[in-house]
């Protein structure tokens, strides 16, 4: 982008950016219109109807006799005016409402084919993990032209992952996952900020988003430090070392088979049901007693305090990969409630 002396909008580097800016420009125009209208009328009336000597008005001592009929309970033209300036703004704001919330829905629903990146915020840095195992700190490398979905969590307080060039921001909370997505349209380096106040170095919790051509990205992936393991394979290692495999890997009756569980509904003890999204998997590991799968005893120990946020991400990546490998069909056909019978 050519450097400009004075800018009014940040770089437009995602598919969302122009859509958001259009709404912004519309609102700027609308605001300008109403501000100028109000200011103009005020000035015009103030000048035109400024106090003149011929106005017979109460004197300094304010002896006020015989009032003019105050406009209580408007009727006629006055009422028409009142209705007009109630209804016209109402129509306008409803328009803005529909426009902006369509956009919001777009921003809130990542496309299904998005590539996944995991983000962990902690005071005061961003830790990023790519599915192929690459890790970075305060940097995020992404390819241009592909939707990217961020799954984010915090180790301590609330942070917020803010990429102004993409017009995307999402709070990063402790204890649960939040998601954000974008599709970069222009290679370059863009700022990354923490937007939720999080303590001393809140303003230092910044970084860069590096958008690359797909081949450059591929090259970067190969060069970046990954410890030689993808997230899922790291998760597999943990699955074994934490002893999850003992209950979950074989078709042992001790715990439910996890293959294909991701994204499917689970029936719970007590009749409720839940969807096995990332948040559910997370809770199942950290707080297994909170939601018990129907038909199983509540014997799974909690791993709270034993697994770090990053290990959790690896475990979940592994559980999700189990579904992908085995097609997931087996489990979904049989359904969680079926499990109870065998």
């Amino acid at each position, binding site marked *: 982008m050519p450097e400009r002396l004075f800018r009014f909008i940040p770089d437009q580097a995602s598919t969302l950016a122009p859509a958001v800016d259009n709404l912004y420009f519309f609102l700027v125009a609308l605001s300008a219109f109403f501000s100028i209208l109000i200011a103009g009328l005020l000035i015009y009336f103030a000048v035109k109807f400024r106090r003149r000597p011929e106005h017979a008005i109460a004197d300094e001592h304010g002896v006020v006799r015989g009032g003019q009929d105050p406009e209580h309970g408007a009727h006629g033209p006055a009422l028409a005016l009142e209705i007009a300036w109630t209804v016209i703004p109402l129509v306008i704001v409803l328009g803005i409402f529909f426009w902006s919330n369509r956009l919001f829905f777009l921003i809130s629903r990542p496309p299904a084919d998005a590539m996944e990146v995991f983000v962990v915020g902690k005071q005061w840095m961003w830790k990023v993990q790519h599915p192929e195992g690459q890790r970075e700190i305060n940097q995020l490398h992404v390819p241009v032209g592909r939707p990217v979905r961020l799954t984010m969590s915090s180790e301590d307080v609330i942070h917020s992952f803010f990429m102004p060039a993409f017009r995307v921001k999402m709070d990063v909370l402790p204890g649960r996952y939040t998601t954000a997505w974008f599709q970069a349209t222009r290679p370059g380096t863009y700022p990354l900020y923490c937007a939720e106040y999080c303590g001393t170095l809140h303003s230092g919790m910044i970084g860069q988003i590096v958008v690359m051509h797909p081949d450059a990205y591929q090259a970067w992936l190969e060069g970046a430090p990954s410890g030689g393991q993808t997230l899922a394979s790291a998760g597999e290692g943990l699955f074994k070392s934490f002893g999850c495999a003992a209950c979950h890997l074989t078709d042992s009756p001790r715990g439910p088979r996890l293959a294909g569980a991701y994204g499917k509904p689970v029936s719970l003890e*007590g009749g409720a049901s839940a969807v096995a999204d990332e948040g559910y998997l997370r809770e199942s590991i950290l*707080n297994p007693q909170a939601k018990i799968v129907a038909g199983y005893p509540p014997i799974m120990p909690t791993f709270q305090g034993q697994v770090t946020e990053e290990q959790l991400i690896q475990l979940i990546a592994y559980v999700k990969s189990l579904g992908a490998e085995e097609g997931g069909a087996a489990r979904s056909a049989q359904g969680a409630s079926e499990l109870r019978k065998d």
Partner: protein
Amino acid sequence: MAEAGHAAPLADEKHGLVSHQFEDVEQQRSAAALGMWAFLVTEVLFFGGLFLAYTVYRRLYPEAFAAGSHHLDVTLGSVNTLVLIGSSLTMALSVHAAQTGDNKALVRLLLATMLLGAVFLGIKVVEYAEKFRDHLVPGVHFHWHGPDEGHVRLFYGLYFMMTGMHAVHMIIGEGLLGWLVIQGRRGRFGPHYNTPVDLIGLYWHFVDIVWIFLFPLLYLLGRH
């Protein structure tokens, strides 16, 4: 002082005083009554925050809440409910005594109300002591023999906040009743002037109503 420059407060024959800002007793009484009701509105929303937290977490962790609740003492809770309803009765009767000018009954009924309030608080102390013994007071010593300790801790946290705030209101109420007793013995109240009895009565009944909701929510869910 401000009062000094003004026409002496109008002494209304038998009734108490009409403060300088009011035109007459009736205005003064109705202002005071509205003031008390408005105050109770703020109390509803004050407790409302706690009820909200309770509802949110109970929805999220029904099992843990049921388990935690199961460990509360229903008998003590029920007895306390009856005690408090009893105190509401004596309070209502005090208002009647004041309205009819039966000063002896007024003082006795107020004392009975205070006594029942004290019984309630006493039972509460016993319950708290038990919880303390069982390590069910949230804090470093909290310990729960059973699944889902974290969410049971939440239940107990809310239990203590809700009953604790209720108890604080009871204690304030006891203080107000004590003041009424002193005034009552001086013969301040009668058919023409009983606003304080009336208003403190409203407060006391309100505290009772709070308990009427706390009792089933905390003690009774998860009983079966």
